[in-house]
C-alpha cells in the first residue's frame, strides 16, 4: 500500500494519521489539531473522504460513539504505515536540506 493510492486524499490522510499518533480523536478535534500542527484547514467533506478511505484500508478504526461523535484511533497496521511514510519523508527532507546547504 502506498500513500499515492489515496489520490487527492493522500495529504489529508497523512495529516489525519499524524494527528491520531498521540491518541484517539474525533473529527472536530482532528481538524483543530491539524490546523495547529500544519496550518491546514481541512473541510468536512475532505476530512470524511479521507477518513472513509483510511477506515476501508483498516489503518484507523472507529471507537464506540460518545454523544454522537465517533473517536478514531490508529490500528497497528496504521501505526506501521504512518511510520513508513514519515521515514520516507524524513529521508527526503534530509537530502533536500543537505543539498540546499551545499548550494548556499
Amino acid at each position, binding site marked *: 500500500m*502506498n*500513500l*499515492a493510492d489515496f*489520490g*487527492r486524499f*493522500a495529504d489529508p490522510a497523512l495529516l489525519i494519521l499524524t494527528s491520531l499518533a498521540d491518541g484517539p480523536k*474525533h*473529527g*472536530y478535534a482532528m*481538524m483543530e489539531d491539524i490546523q495547529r500542527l500544519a496550518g491546514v484547514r481541512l*473541510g*468536512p*467533506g*475532505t*476530512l*470524511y*473522504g479521507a*477518513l*472513509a*478511505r483510511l*477506515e*476501508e484500508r483498516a489503518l484507523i478504526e472507529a471507537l464506540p*460513539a460518545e*454523544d*454522537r*461523535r*465517533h473517536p478514531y484511533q490508529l490500528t497497528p497496521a496504521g501505526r506501521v504505515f504512518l511510520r*513508513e*511514510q514519515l521515514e*520516507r*519523508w524524513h529521508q*527526503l527532507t534530509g537530502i533536500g536540506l543537505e543539498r540546499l546547504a551545499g548550494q548556499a
Partner: protein
Amino acid sequence: MLALLLRLYPRAWRERYEQEFRALLDERGLSAGDVLDIVVGAMDARLSPRQHLMEANMLQAGDKTGLRIIGVGAVLCAVLLWLSIINGGSVGFVDGTLMIPGIMVMFVISILLHLACRKHDPQRSRQALQITAGCFVVGLLIFLVLRQQSNTQLIVGWQGVFLAGTFGLWIVLNARIGFAAGLLRSWAMLFGVAAGVLWIILYIVMMGFDLAYQPELSSSGWMVLLFGTAIVWLIAQILWALGLALSLLLPRGLVPAPQ
C-alpha cells in the same frame, strides 16, 4: 441547508457517518467554503463508493440491475427513435455520405475503447460487449419487423443498412451508459471530481448547442437530443481514454519507494 447537503451523500454513507458529521458541523459551523467542500465530498462518495460501507452482493446486484435497466431503456429509446423517423419524415438532414463513415468510425472507436479498458475493468468490459452485440441484433430485428409492417417511407438499400446500423448504434450508445459511468468514475478517481463536473458541463453545452441550432427539427427535436448525446458520449470516451493513458504516465508518488 445541512439536511439538503447531507442528502447528496449515498444512503450507505449517511447511515455510517451522518450523526458524527452533524456533530462536527454543530461544533464548527458551516461556511461557504465548507458547503462547496461538502458538495464535492458527496460527489466523491457517490463516484467512489467505499467497499466497507456496502455489502459485496449489493454492489453486484446493483450492477446487474443497472445493466438490465439500461438494456430496456436502450431498446425503448431505439423504438421511439424509429417511430420518429417514420412519422416525423425529417430525415433530409441525414447525409449518408458523411453519416455512414462517421457511424462506422464511432463503432470502431467504441470497440477499441472496449479493448483498451479490458484490463482495467474486465468484468464491466465483458458485460458492455455483450450488451453491444445483443442490442445491435435486437435493433436489426426490430428494423426488419417494422419494415415488413409499415409502408415505404422506409428505406431500402444503403439507407436501410445505415438506419439499421444507426438504430443499433443508438442502442449501443445508450446501453453503454452504465459502462461509461463506471469509466467516468475511474476517471474522476484519477483526476478528481472536477473531471466529472467538467463532463456534465460539456454535456449541457452540447445539448444546448444542438437545440439552439437545429430549430427546423423541432418535430424530431428529441432525436437531436439523442444525437447530441452520442456526440458528447464520444467526446467523453475519447477524453477518458486520454485520461487513462495520461494516468499511466503519471508518477505514482513523490516519495521514493523503500529499497
